[in-house]
Every structure is written in structure tokens, then in C-alpha cells.
């Protein structure tokens, strides 16, 4: 739509026209502020736990489990040096044999959600699919944090109350 708008403006005599081709989705995915009726509503990115433990593919499960438990977590996210998400370890995966490499133990390619998704939409999705937690990433796959069902349901509930 915006390419057509840009060309149309040129046809009307505008000489310096730019097209932000990746558009509002890119802006929202970066967690940048917006204006409008949804601007103040809670979103996945703001509710996600940014301090979720992370690990590398070549670590042993026992080390990651200890690190997660020390921080009071029963989940960890496998990422690379760019924080691109490769896998998720929830309680079930963390309870596996300790000598396993994370690349073997993890749940690979988990579903991810963008930071701009509204809490009310996330709550419905997570309840419908019985997701206790889910990974929030930027549009280029980098970890933002782990979103917990209890947090998003509480936020959605307080918003609708």
C-alpha cells in the first residue's frame, strides 16, 4: 500500500518522497512507542521477563539446569551470540539427563511472538493452546524475553476489569 501512496504523491508534484517499506510492523516489533487508542495497552514485550536464563547449544544440560534453578527459573532459552533464539527448555526438558548437550535437550524452533501483540490477544492464545510460557522475539528472531501465562492473564484481566 505504501509504495502506491509514495508514487501517487510523486505524481502530485512531491519531489522528495520516501517509503518506510517495512512499516508499522517493524516499528512495533522494535518496541518503539506509538500513539493511538492501543498505545497504553499492555503488550507482550512489556510483560515479558527479560531476565530469563539463556544458554548456548554446546553447554551441558546439568550446568544450565543449575543456573536456571539458582535464579528460581524452570525454563531457559537457547540462543546464539546474537541472541537469536534456537530453542526453549521448559521444566520437562530441564529435567532430562544432565550430560546431554543443549542442542539435543532443547525443544527446537519454538513458536515466538512479537513484542507488540496486545496482552488480551496473548492471554487468549496462551490459554487456548495451554502455553505456560512463550518466547517473545524481535522480527529478526532476537530474544526479548519469556512471557509467562500468569503475567499476561493478570494484565489482560486488569485491563478488562
Amino acid at each position, binding site marked *: 500500500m505504501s509504495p502506491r*501512496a*509514495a508514487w501517487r504523491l510523486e505524481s502530485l508534484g512531491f519531489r522528495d518522497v520516501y517509503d518506510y517499506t517495512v512499516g508499522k510492523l517493524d516499528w512495533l516489533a522494535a518496541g518503539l512507542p506509538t500513539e493511538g487508542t492501543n498505545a497504553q495497552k499492555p503488550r507482550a514485550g512489556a510483560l515479558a521477563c527479560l531476565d530469563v536464563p539463556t544458554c548456548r547449544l554446546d553447554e551441558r544440560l546439568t550446568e544450565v539446569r543449575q543456573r536456571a534453578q539458582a535464579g528460581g527459573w524452570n525454563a531457559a532459552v537457547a540462543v546464539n551470540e546474537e541472541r537469536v533464539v534456537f530453542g526453549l527448555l521448559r521444566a520437562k526438558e530441564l529435567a532430562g539427563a544432565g550430560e546431554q548437550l543443549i542442542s539435543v535437550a532443547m525443544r527446537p524452533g519454538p513458536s515466538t511472538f512479537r513484542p507488540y501483540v496486545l496482552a488480551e490477544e496473548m492471554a487468549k492464545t496462551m490459554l487456548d493452546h495451554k502455553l505456560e510460557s512463550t518466547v517473545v522475539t524481535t522480527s529478526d528472531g532476537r530474544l526479548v524475553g519469556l512471557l509467562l501465562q500468569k503475567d499476561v492473564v493478570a494484565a489482560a484481566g486488569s485491563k478488562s476489569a
Partner: protein
Amino acid sequence: MPKGIDREGLRRMVAAGAQLVEVLPAEEYAEDHLPGAISIPLRHIDAEGAKVLDKDRAVIVNCWDSA
């Protein structure tokens, strides 16, 4: 020919005085739009609709994505 621009370029140009125009339907603009954007839905971009814009300043248009 219109030029593409990325997020950082947009921020720099808006700070320097460029006009930002969201061309999505007004209802979608009302829910969420980039700070400072004005609404001119695509179907309203004509000689009349563009009167709110300054032809001597840069204009950046946006929608959801490139679709």
C-alpha cells in the same frame, strides 16, 4: 522515484522536519500510529487530500509493511 528508508533513517528525517504520513485506513491509524504521523488513507491521496502536506518538505509514507 520514491526512495526506501529504514527505521533509523525515518527517525533522523522526522527529527529534521520530514512529514510522516500513514496511508492505512483511518480506523487502523486510530489504534496505533508512529509518533507524529498524520493520517491520509491511500484512497484519499489526491490533489485535495494532499493539501495538508508541504510540497517543499520531504514526505515519508508508511503502512503495515510492504504488502
